């Protein structure tokens, strides 16, 4: 019951911080709220005994990606609120659409949702188990992802590099 309570509270906090991400006017605040959200989600991971993923999530997302976001924000000097006033009717319809999305997803899934399918505390999320799986069954995808990375790298360089001809 305690775990259940914790997870419910954690879930509520996750939703709340996620909402703050899209509600806060200032982008830097959004980034910070997002980092907090990631932390909460990692908390869920730990609750489910998926330690490796929890760590990766914090390191890669909160540590690397979000820092990158902050860097870019600072670099482009975008830390002031320059977002135009939100157009209310448009955001209203957008919220309606998003709400409808949630609604239909839940409506569709409602037959399956009985809150009886409880989660087993398993060991599969431990580093050792995952490592074995990754380097045996999923070694090819692992290697293949190198193509992804190299193209992302090349792409980033290609796009972000300043050309000699036109210097702004």
């Amino acid at each position, binding site marked *: 019951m305690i775990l259940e309570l914790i997870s419910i509270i954690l879930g509520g906090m996750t939703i709340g911080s996620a909402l703050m991400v899209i509600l806060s006017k200032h982008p830097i605040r959004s980034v910070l709220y997002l980092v907090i959200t990631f932390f909460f989600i990692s908390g869920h991971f730990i609750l489910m005994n998926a330690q490796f993923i929890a760590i990766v999530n914090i390191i890669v997302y909160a540590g690397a990606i979000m820092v990158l976001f902050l860097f870019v924000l600072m670099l482009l000097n975008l830390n002031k609120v320059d977002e135009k006033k939100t157009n209310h009717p448009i955001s209203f*319809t*957008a919220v309606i*659409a*998003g709400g*409808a*999305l949630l609604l*239909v997803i839940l*409506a*569709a899934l*409602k037959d399956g949702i009985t809150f009886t399918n409880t989660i087993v505390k398993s060991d599969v999320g431990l580093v050792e188990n995952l490592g074995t799986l990754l380097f045996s069954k999923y070694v090819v995808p692992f290697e293949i992802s190198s193509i992804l990375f190299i193209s992302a790298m090349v792409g980033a360089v290609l796009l972000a590099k300043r050309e000699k001809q036109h210097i702004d």
Partner: protein
Amino acid sequence: MGTETLILFVLLFPLIGGLINGTIGKNLSETVVGTIGTLMVAIPFVISFSIFLSLESAVNIPLFSLLKLSDFSLNAGLQVDALAIWMTMIITGIGSLIHIFSMGYMKGDPGFYKFFSYLNLFIFSMLILVLGSSYFMLFFGWEGVGICSYLLIGFHYNDKEKGLLNTLAARKAFVMNRIGDLGLLIGCFLLINQFGSLEFSVIAEKMKSLSIATDSVAIIGITLCLFIAATGKSAQIPLFTWLPDAMAGPTPVSALIHAATMVTAGIYLVVRSNFLFELAPYTQNIILYIGLATSLVAAFIAMRQNDIKKVLAYSTVSQLGLMFVALGLGSYTVAIFHVTTHAFFKALLFLGSGSIIHANHHEQDLTKMGGLKKYMPVTHLVFLLGTLAISGFPLLSGFFSKDEILAAGFVHSPLIFSLLILSASLTAIYMFRMYFLVFFGQFRGDHHTKEHLHESPGVMTLPLIVLAIFSVLGGALNIPDFIVSNGAHWLDHFLNHGTFGLDKIHSHHLETSSAVGIMIGTSVITFLIIGISYWMYVSKQKVTKDEHDFTGWEKLSSKKLYFDEIYNALFVKSVEWKASKVLPFIENSILIKGIGLLTHMISFSGSQIRKIQTGILSSYFFWMILGIVGLISYYLIYFKLWNF
């Protein structure tokens, strides 16, 4: 050589003549062209005369099969019997005379060779018409003469003033004939449907074996169709208005085609189909009344025509009407007899008028003539004979042929008889009006023309004289039996014995007393009319009024009872209105615009759809999310899960 071969020569000579003149005639002198043209008709006349002399029974000459269809075939074949050879002789005989005349009349015309070529081709087509062994061949020639007639009516197409008018007349003739042809065509189809063949002989045979009821629908349909065809060619109501207009052609053409030969094709058709018409008294009655009406109407119109050729043209229509009356009364041989005599005197009259016109510098108006007697004695004499013959002057050819029609009418009913008498009297009236106006009194034309008035050359007068002789003596062909005992009704016998169907029809024989009575009566009327006319036009020197000055019935007559105007309003105008207003409207506004509207709608919807593509990212997300919502909703609907 047998008849089979000879008859081919009869056919081929005019064709060859036409082709020679048409192709190389341009480089030949007029004399050569004329001679070739004439010989190519004269020789067939001689040949056909010899065939006529030796003809014993009908000869059927299959030539070749044009097209074999599943249940019957279109055959080219000839058939020589009494009727055919008689018509051939009329055509070639009168044809050659007119050819001779044309050599003089057309002298100096740039289209001289063409003219002779067309004439020869016309003779050829006409011969096919009468010699053909089937309705198909008849139709072949039927159409052929139509074209030649078209070409000849519009012969002077490039005339500065009247060129287009001439061709309009030609077109009118062709189109009206085509309407008739339509009847013939449909008649042919009905015949095929009924008898499975178009051969005269086969149909005649089947008529016997099939034992078709009198006045059955099929027969009435067929005969009516054939009669429509006949009204087209033979200028009967309602299709008669083309014939007077056709006088736009050169005068020999009028003589040959529109008086002596082509217009009798309708008579020939009905006589040829006598076995069919005999079974359709209903149609015969229609023929009778139409013929009578035509005869009277045309005679009435002829009363106050001022154009010499128009008078003759309406006279022709009127005479053709009389022939149809004879046909309607079942007196086929009488009709042919009248065809024959009419050919003589009408050709004579037309050629005579040609001679007059030639002398008058192509002036045809009666009001501009007068007193020509002294300038053109030969023409005057033959013209007088012709006029007398057509008016039924006793013992001339017209007297006998018309008398037989009257006799037939007398047998039928007194009303018909009296109307026939009226028609015959009208003939005499307008003919003598014309005769006196032309030859008596003072010359009313201009001075210039007067100086040049002259008798026509020998080539022109010679045929006139020959025709005059025939017009006078033609009656001898069919003299009533109470006048001569031996050889009476020779033509009747000849035709009856050599033509399908006719042998079974017995002509009505009047008692001698009534016959003599009719003869005397008509003679008296004719004399009276001549006398009155002489008194009016010669003694009182009455001169006809100008066309515009007519009033009352005279105006009605001069305006041709407004037939042209009525037709124009009823048919021509409505078709032209459709052609120039209604159908282009359908075409442009409904069909084309309709399609245009469709394409416009398509591109309009394109430009509307285009507006969704706003270029703003968040709207694209919005649509995509709505898309997913839609997809899931589809799932919910699909499994009917819409119950929360």
